[in-house]
């Protein structure tokens, strides 16, 4: 906070650096967001939806899977209410990210909470949660989370714009839908170490496939909830709450 803290565009250099750290944390996922945006944009064009409305969707709803579902419902001639409800059920998982981010956002000013809430996405939310403990200072933390969220939404929106302008330029045989599981494998697996988390992953996976016939993509929501519920019953060897139990487990013991 001294002579190095030059102010550019009203933002001090420390804050630029923290924003940049957030961008770097999420950067490997940005090409995937662009591709997914391209796919949504191409769908908007094929469905004959007004280009402005398509772009508006990506900056207002900011949730690709639900936007695709809306376009498909409209194409199929479904009632508007059904299209909206389908989208909201798909996006219900965002409430889980929001709950998990509540302690992370708690010390932020109200306007930051309101602003950052809008740009919660699967990718930025989980990257923010993974890094939150590294940012004890809430001021620096909020700039980091802004960096991990804002530019990610920006590239998603630019991908949409490009897809609407270009149409379906990516051959279907490339099956770019694979980018979806791949992105989330890249977010999930490298940080997967504790037994509660592994149980949560196994239970969520099982419930999703067992619930494959549920409507509205409810199997994803139920899978996530079941994983959280069962996983949180599993004792975490590394964090075995010594304050409650009155003793300390062998730290770093056998896996």
């Amino acid at each position: 906070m001294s002579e190095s803290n030059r102010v550019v565009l009203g933002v001090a250099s420390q804050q630029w650096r923290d924003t940049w750290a957030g961008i770097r944390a999420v950067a490997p996922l940005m090409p995937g967001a662009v591709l997914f945006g391209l796919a949504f944009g191409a769908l908007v064009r094929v469905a004959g939806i007004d280009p402005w409305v398509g772009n508006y969707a990506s900056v207002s709803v900011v949730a690709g899977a639900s936007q695709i579902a809306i376009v498909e419902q409209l194409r199929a001639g479904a009632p508007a209410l059904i299209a909206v409800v389908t989208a909201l059920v798909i996006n219900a998982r965002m409430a889980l990210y929001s709950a998990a981010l509540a302690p992370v956002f708690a010390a932020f000013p109200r306007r930051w909470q309101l602003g950052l809430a809008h740009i919660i996405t699967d990718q930025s939310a989980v990257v923010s949660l993974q890094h939150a403990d590294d940012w004890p200072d809430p001021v620096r933390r909020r700039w980091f989370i802004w960096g991990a969220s804002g530019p990610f939404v920006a590239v998603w929106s630019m991908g949409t714009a490009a897809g609407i302008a270009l149409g379906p330029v990516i051959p279907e045989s490339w099956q770019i839908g694979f980018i979806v599981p791949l992105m989330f494998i890249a977010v999930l697996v490298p940080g997967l170490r504790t037994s509660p988390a592994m149980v949560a992953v196994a239970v969520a996976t099982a419930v999703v496939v067992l619930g494959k016939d549920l409507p509205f993509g409810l199997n994803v929501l139920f899978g996530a909830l079941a994983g959280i519920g069962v996983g949180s019953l599993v004792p975490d060897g590394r964090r075995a709450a010594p304050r409650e139990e009155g003793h300390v487990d062998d730290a770093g013991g056998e896996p």
Partner: protein
Amino acid sequence: MTAFLVFTAAAVGTYLIRLSGVWLLGGDRELPDRVTRALRLVGPAAMAAIIANALLLEGSEWRTFGAWHLAALVAVGVALWRRTMGVTIAAGVAAFAVLLATGL
């Protein structure tokens, strides 16, 4: 016009969903240990649910075994080995491209 209204309604509803947890669980309160432990699993559980749905299923049918599963296995292996996001994605894309090119 219908599309505009539908997206607007979905945007408002989704914003309220995104705000819900921050709003209800936020503030100075100390969350119970049980809740904190559950919230720590939101990321892994949600990621796994999305992966399972996108990888193993195709709509409400099982996805036919092939390039998707094999490339995902390569990505998981590399992720466990190198523990970085960028390398995992690069490996998954490369494996998927090779598998598609060989006609799987």
